């Protein structure tokens, strides 16, 4: 069971990576407009 001492912090650290990515995405404006990109994708230019 000692493996838990490593696995739990590891799991949280992995989760934290995604939390940091989320914060970066939010700060970078990825969530500012959720309606246009799907329409934009259909246009080729």
């Amino acid at each position: 069971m000692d493996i838990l001492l490593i696995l739990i912090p590891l799991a949280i650290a992995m989760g934290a990576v995604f939390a940091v990515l989320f914060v970066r995405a939010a700060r970078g404006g990825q969530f500012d407009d959720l309606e246009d990109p799907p329409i934009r994708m259909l246009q080729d230019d």
Partner: protein
Amino acid sequence: MSTRPVAEALATSTTTGEELSCPHCGDAVATLGAFCCSGCEVAWAMLHEAGLQDYYARREEPGPRPEPLRGAWQVVPVVERPDGLVEASLCVDGLRCSSCTWVVERLLERSEGVEEATVSYANGRTRVVFDPTVTELGTLAQTVAAVGYAPRPVDAPEGRDELLSRLGVAAFLTSNLMLLSTSLYIGWFDGMDPRYATLFRWGALALATPIALYAAAPFFVGAWRGLKARAIGMDVPIALAVAVLYVHGVWQTMAGAEGYLDSLGMLVTLLLVGRVLERRGRRAAAEASAAIAASLPLTARRRVDGGVEEVPVQHLLVGDIVEFGAGDEVPADGRVREGKGRLQMALLTGESEPVAVAPGSEVVAGAQVVSGTMAMTVERVGEATTAMRMAEAVREATARPMPRSPADALAPWFTAITVGVAVIAGLAWAWFDTPERGIQVAVATLVVACPCALGLSVPLSVAAGLGAVARRGVVFRDGGQLMALADLGTLAMDKTGTVTEGVPAVLEASDESLRMAGALERASRHPMARAILAEGRARGLRIPVASEVVETPGKGIEGIVEGRRVDVYGAGPGAVAVDVEGETVHLIRVGDRPRPDAQQAIARLRAAGVTTVLLSGDHPEVTEAIGRRVGVDQGIGGCSPDDKAAWLVQHDDVGFVGDGLNDGPALAAARVGMAMFSGVPSSLWIADGVVTRPALAPVVAAVAGARATRDAVRSNLIRSVAYNILAVGAAVAGLINPLVAAILMPLSSGLVIAGALMVPRRLERLEKQWTSS
């Protein structure tokens, strides 16, 4: 620009049945490949010159017809960037399909000096980055306007805030925190390796730290601001609870025991969810009502010694003499010196019908010249003009403080009582038991009494209410104003454009007269012409093509239809005569008519216990007649815009529904003002709510939604207060430990969320009730 390849114009000009259409806007034209107006021709040529002819192939709907540019572009705020470029926002109205966003973006990007342009199809918000030494916003707006879209100025581009990041962090940390805490709780019963217990406790503290310091920061900032302003709001007890929970948690961890850190995480996460929802509702509402567009032209033709010069309107001085003619907009407020003509002065009178002006008449900036050539003496310029004063009034109205929500009103009491009870209970336990037990009870009291349910109850119900009402066609800027609507006993309404359709419609006409007149009116842009064509189309008539059409502005239109000479002209108010071969054979009766759902909507409002009043600038007799037809309780005619505002101020708690620029003062004066969205970019909104559909039913839905929201907020407040009393009682009795708190807290929040989710259903139930009674 006149060297357009005719073959291509022919290709986009389509023939449907016997109707030929303009290659740009799709309106009917007489010959294949011809344009309906010079505006469309310019737009078509511009798109081809810019290499954007693909637009015609990819669009789903015909393009809009170009209208002259309006708006005070020189005062639009821009953001300077470190690289010397500037960023500005504008809103483009008239986007009909995704190709429209494509063409507007490309046009802007290909303009000189533009670095980047993005257009949002959802709301028309356009962000453009350009070099201010090469071009200016007005020029860019002109480019967009020239192809038929309607750009309007909006306020500065808004900054992004951290709320979403905070919520993401809090949600991630809390879910892991609960994992650790749950293990610890199970460990109470089953026993646990002390090494794990220590790891989990310190792990929990490590996870809780960013929650308290980063995610919960807005609550501390809000609490601090409130304390400085000596107005204790909901943020104060929330910040207090977070601080106590965290400090207690640190202390417990060091002492080798469990704190309430999981409750802390849950509290912060749920409250942030409430904030995000609330803000989303408010932002959607703000965007829809941000159409504050002053209707001033950019330049004016000023008389100087021996000629006329074109100057920017901001260079005009009082006493200058300026000239203007058909198609122009009046550049400043003033008085006509010479010349005669007809102006559309919706700004002052609210009537869309043009009025005749002659030397001595007063004219206002932004009025549209329908016909004639005139010169005027400038009396008021810039900020002093009627249009700019209205814009200023709007700015003031939007900046006025939001009313305090009921939860905020309870907050000081709530804080005082909770803290008082916690201190007394803690001291009592410390006296009769041990000091540690005293601290435990005091903290437990603060935890279970934590204002989570209370803090969530209002924003969630309000967000649900704003959303439900918006789906039914009224977008409100803030929840406080929506709830204020619930308590209003009287609703005043403007007549033209609110209770009535606001555009002339054919009331009575034979098919033959519509065919004859319609053939000629195709070439005309007069509102009557549109009414006649619309009615003809609605009746499914085949409208022939006329030749030799001559329009005399202010008089009428004539031409040859099916080999006969036809004359169409105004024959007194509300009547259009159609002469065939010089003999009047048909009369078309036109006029403004009540909206189809007006009568039913007003009956429903009566069932809801709301008194309805018609306030109009029109003649008292006309107002009363329309009032009787739709069934309002009172009709007051002959009101100037200021009279309406005065009436609303006098009768304190009255809501108002109006439209257009001239209702600005009334919308501001009303306790709750709602504006009908007319789609005209010049309409100036000062309203708390915007009715997004051309009908009155949304107004009824707004009243129902307001009452549903108010009820939900009230019952939620009662629920959370009841919960708090019970929970605090248990805490004082020493029955609460971290595990019990972890179960009680989400339970109380769930209760409140369920209450908020009931709002849309309650809205529908109320509406049904009013319809049947």
